[in-house]
């Protein structure tokens, strides 16, 4: 391992440790008697049994997608805080497709649902993109607006076209409209009574997310399109000088970011685990995507891992509810851990400055200085 990678790894460990420590303190304050048990649950639950591993992957799928969405826009110098709205809009379109088109074979209907959701997300992302490119409206402002417009629109449409009054949410999709599980249910399962199994509902979605991440990596790193987008993100004046059409890059980047989030929404609502709320709430996935993108250093491959890590913590966190911790406390704890991870750069610089010399020479600074004094004399 080279020095830089070693430093990155070390600093990741440090921030994770500090984040966990403070998370633990919060648990202690909230309920000292079961704090340790809750802490252990957060840390280990995702690995307790193969079924939980499946659930980690299932939970990772949508937030990997929103993470990719935020990261993609970020590469072009845009902050896509609108992933939430694009996600919801994509999810809604997938649900609507899933409830209709009975004439189509299942496979085709699912593919249509995913494509339509991607297009819907892209359209939703295009709005802030166009406003930024041609009217110079800051994307954060217009993204926040499209988030709320999306939220109300989704509530309205769910209410109108796919409402199940019994649960106050969208009607569950017919079995044939859900993503295929590819036999994962026989792998990620646990035997709770002899001969009886409970399976994770992880499905092809996680593979689609991973594939998308790899595709995004290739687009950004290997193509002229990626070259242009990143040039705009790094230095827009130089991009202009090079004759790159910035307006086109901005719109394209926001559309792709929106498409990624929209597809994420589709992957969530076609996994047979989730229905759409008809109450006016902003979905958390888009915001979690910001942390995921940050943690993964906006690198598509890194995001696969950061998304999985965050999902792992959330799964364990949710489990602590059985110990009597309220979901709010759990979310605070997990947020603290995630936000500490955002300090990874700072810690890396710090380590580089103060410990780098030590590490290389394996001596204390005093010794170090003494030796050098000797050399120069």
């Amino acid at each position, binding site marked *: 391992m080279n020095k830089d990678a070693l430093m990155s790894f070390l600093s990741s460990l440090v921030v994770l440790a500090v984040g966990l420590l403070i998370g633990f303190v919060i648990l202690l304050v909230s309920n000292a008697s079961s704090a340790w048990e809750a802490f252990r649950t957060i840390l280990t639950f995702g690995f307790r049994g193969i079924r939980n591993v499946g659930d980690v992957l299932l939970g990772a799928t949508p937030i990997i997608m929103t993470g990719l969405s935020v990261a993609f826009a970020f590469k072009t110098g845009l902050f896509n805080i609108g992933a939430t709205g694009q996600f919801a809009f994509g999810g809604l379109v997938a649900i609507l497709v899933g409830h209709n088109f009975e004439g189509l074979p299942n496979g085709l209907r699912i593919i249509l649902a995913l494509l339509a959701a991607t297009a819907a997300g892209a359209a939703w992302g295009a709005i802030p993109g166009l406003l930024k490119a041609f009217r110079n409206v800051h994307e954060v402002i217009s993204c926040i607006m499209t988030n709320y417009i999306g939220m109300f629109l989704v509530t309205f449409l769910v209410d109108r076209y796919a409402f199940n009054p019994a649960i106050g949410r969208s009607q569950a999709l017919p079995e044939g409209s859900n993503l295929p599980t590819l036999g994962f249910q026989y792998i990620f399962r646990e035997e709770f009574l002899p001969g009886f199994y409970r399976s994770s509902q992880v499905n092809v979605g996680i593979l689609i997310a991973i594939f998308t991440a790899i595709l995004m990596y290739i687009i950004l790193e290997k193509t002229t399109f990626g070259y242009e987008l990143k040039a705009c993100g790094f230095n827009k004046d130089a991009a202009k000088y090079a004759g790159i059409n910035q307006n086109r890059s901005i719109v394209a980047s926001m559309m792709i970011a929106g498409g990624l989030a929209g597809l994420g929404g589709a992957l969530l609502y076609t996994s047979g685990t989730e229905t759409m709320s008809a109450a006016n709430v902003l979905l958390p996935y888009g915001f979690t995507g910001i942390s995921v993108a940050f943690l993964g250093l906006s690198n598509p491959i890194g995001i696969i891992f950061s998304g999985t890590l965050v999902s792992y913590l959330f799964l364990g966190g949710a489990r602590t509810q059985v110990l009597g911790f309220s979901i709010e406390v759990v979310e605070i704890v997990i947020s603290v851990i995630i936000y500490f991870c955002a300090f990874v750069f700072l810690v890396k610089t710090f380590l580089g400055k103060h410990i780098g010399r030590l590490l290389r020479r394996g001596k204390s600074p005093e010794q170090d200085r003494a030796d050098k004094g000797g050399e*120069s004399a």
Partner: protein
Amino acid sequence: MRNITKEFPGIIANDCVTLQLKKGEIHALLGENGAGKSTLMSVLFGLYRQEAGEIYKNGESVQIQGPNDANRLGIGMVHQHFKLVHNFTVLENIVLGVETTKSGVLQMKEARDKVLSLSKKYAFDIDIDKEVRHISVGMQQRVEILKMLYRDNEILIFDEPTAVLTPQEIEALMQTMRDMAAEGKSILFITHKLDEIKLVADRCSVLRKGKMIGTVDVAATTKEEMSEMMVGRKVILSLDKNEATVGETILQVRNLSRRGNESKSGKAQLSNINFDVKAGEILCIAGIEGNGQTDLVYALTGLSDIDSGTIILNGTDISKAKIRKRTEAGISHIPEDRHRHGLVLDYTLAYNTVLQTYYTPRFQAKGFLKMKTILDYARKLIERFDIRSGQGEVTSTRAMSGGNQQKVILAREIDRDPQLLIAVQPTRGLDVGAIEYIHSQLLAQRDSGKAVLLISLELEEVMNVSDRILVMYEGEFVADVNPKDVTFQELGLYMSGAKRSEVAV
């Protein structure tokens, strides 16, 4: 500084360097691009931490962990690229970081008096209540100097201060440096211009490829000796230039006007500009900074729109064409501000060499970049233009020395073999060897029948390289002269607007 060593990935930027600065002296630091001058000064200023070596002040060993330590020790630095807050006033910039407050409220009165008296003492003639973004580069530098003086620094580091100044401003700066030295301040002065060293410096230390070659007494050493120390071989400081064989008109500009302007000083605009550039000639536009040269270049290259007039390249009207169209039509542009327009600093050296051509079939197939071709191409340019960096073609451009960054732009723009090469201050920040090479390249372009439009503030460059000179003053051409028939003095008069002559198209 004793036995300072500083390494970067792939390169030892300073290799056991020892430098001694005396009280009250002006000490020049000379070296080729990438020799490690800025790095050494950054170590002294606490921006980098040396891996080995000690720094002593007044005989005592000191630890400099950061700029704050440096400041406490009375060390100040004016960077190669200034570090000012653009929407703060001059005064606010000066006190930033060392404000006096009384129960949380800023006390500006004292600061104002101190700054005013300093400014008066050195005859800076600066309006301290103007926002920094509205003042010229020369003035910004004075702000940086005032910052150091305000903090009562005793050791002043200047990293290539003259690269961005006009000849008049350089003269004023030299005087300021002399005054400050006379007061007992010690000055470290990085420059590539031997004349300046001769003019103000007492001693000169020479770095070559990270190593200290030696320190000489300036008065007892010739310019030739110093440049020989710097490059390790004899350098010829004169350019041999044959007669131009002028061909057809390549660029024709008619009645070009522009009202709104991009230049910082705010006074210049373009009014009714007419000129031609012909194949096989180097036409130079001379003038004091801020007289519309920047606006003219922006108009020609398409970085900004024009209000009226026509620009014709090789018979095609490009007045309204997009930047890429103009590039493809054969315009190369070496921009004035290398960090703003010329480079994507976060891209590698190789990526920057294809900034204008990445989409052509040579470097791209079916939308995919041909990595190997790009890397090979970058290696070729590195070789040909002697671009020095830590890790060759994969070096992040941000980690390169200023002069070598400039060489990347030059290599890219010259190698595209344009019809018209627009070079704005192309040798800014380059060492003498590199300047010589660039000048010979400009001549080679000319001799192969290309048109070259050179925009330069340096009279020496203007006189040596060009075949024809147009002088610009307040957005107009005020003289059209042949460098052979004009003296430096005369040119200076034109540039300051004191003299005018008929300008025929």
